[in-house]
């Protein structure tokens, strides 16, 4: 199913990817080709087959509810683009 430039712009907005119209046009062609490849899946009947989300159908392991990490805030915030007084700085969200 071919993807239009408008659809690409919509997906890009959902995925928070800034994209100009020329780039959206370029991706529309490529994404259409990829979806064409992906649709080969429909050649195989999967009626009644249970979806598989983990390669060995294993369940996620649970751990005891106790503190295992110590505070490394300063170490982690040293590599932040903008941090102050232990807080990550972003543009104002709530007026």
């Amino acid at each position, binding site marked *: 199913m071919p993807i239009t430039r408008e659809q690409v712009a919509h997906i890009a907005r959902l995925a928070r990817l800034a*994209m100009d119209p020329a780039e959206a046009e370029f991706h529309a062609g490529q994404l259409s080709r990829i*979806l064409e490849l*992906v649709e*080969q899946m429909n050649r195989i009947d999967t009626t009644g087959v249970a979806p598989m989300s983990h390669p060995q159908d294993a369940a996620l392991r649970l751990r005891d509810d106790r503190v295992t990490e110590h505070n490394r805030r300063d170490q982690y915030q040293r590599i932040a*683009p903008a941090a102050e007084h232990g807080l*990550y700085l972003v543009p104002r969200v709530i007026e």
Partner: protein
Amino acid sequence: MTDAPLHHRSITAHARSLRNREYSCLELTRHFLARIEAAADLNAFITVTAEHALKQAEDADRRIAAGQATALTGIPLAHKDLFCTRGVLTSCGSKILANFISPYDATVVDQLNRRGAVILGKTNMDEFAMGSSNETSHYGPARNPWDKSAVPGGSSGGSAAAVAARLTPVATGTDTGGSIRQPAALCGLTGVKPSYGRVSRHGMIAFASSLDQGGVLSRCAEDAAIVLHAMSGFDANDSTSLRHPVPDYPALLDQPIAGKTIGLPGEFFGPGVDHEVARCVDQAIAQLGRMGAKTVPVELPNSAAGIPCYYVLAPAEASSNLARFDGVRYGHRAAEYADLDDLYAKTRGEGFGAEVKRRIMIGAYVLSSGYYDAYYLKAQRLRRLIADDFKRAFERCDVIAGPTTPATAFAIGEKSRDPVAMYLNDIFTNAVNLAGLPGLSIPAGFDRNGRPVGLHLIGRYLDEATLLSVAHRYQMETDWHRQTPPGYA
């Protein structure tokens, strides 16, 4: 000193010579650092950690002098730039992480450090491991030492180029759909991807979490067995890590091939395989037969669906995993933005390359409401059919064999404009990730242009030991793995 140049010696030979003081870890490290510098045109490394390596080598020399050496003490290695290394740039081949100095070590890095291995540097790779040619790297393509106009494969392309050119004895890699085995094949190396859950993913920057596995690129199966053994094992920091005991892979290398049954799926030997690749693979299988292996035909009827299935599931998982790169906590942030949404979008629009954006968008699309059932659930159902095919095949054989790739290394630029042509490189490898099985590629000859051909061996779940022993036995009888690219002898 010994007869063979240092860079042609195995890990076992180095360990013995280091213990006998024939040379020091410092000398060995300097030797490889000099080779890395001389081969800078391969673009195999993103970062060379020379100063840190020399310090680790001095520590290793002291440890050996104190009689506390392990099999890896003083052995130089390189890490794919997707494994977090504390205090060192960990870029994942991306502009968005081009300033990311990791505050912690990946479990794999920590395990190898604790055994005394010496880190020479971080290797080039396709951005976020998305690619089969190393061409999507923000740092430019790595080159294939067998032919510098050709790709080394990907995504662990820098690791493959570095080991092939003998710039390091061994390198780590990761494999989501073939990213260890395909570059190993294209560069004439041994590359092993273990069973899903064998090697910790903690500190391995995530691409597709249900498919990603760390592993090894090396010159021979013996070296791979030593390093894989050191990397494997349970890690509480990875929720999908296995509690199963890790067999002593090096001790199990000498298992006989006689009595083993090799399954040959007709689907892997079709007209899509280059005839010189097919010739080399047929000869390798005949060699295994002369060594006592039996062969049986097996069927993997849904294997053709592996590529479409993979290119739904891997992008879906990637689009979720890569949501964390937002310009707030670490990495690149756009210089100018109007508000928070604009900060996210500009940061990501500038920070990700075209292939990564494509995969994020495919992932967002197949997960979006209205398409979820038709794409994502359909792919998960196919995944079960593919995994069940392998289960049935392994009722009749111990190992499945075929070509690792349909063709040998292609020219830089040849496929980079056509994502679908690029994706088809992984046609034989990605079903193995979907099923979570161990897989390995070993050198099995050359095409008429002197480009290496890889033999692909797939094992039962958790049976890396049999794969490594078959590879090792084959390498005792053949010398494809000892060939060195001209100019790197």
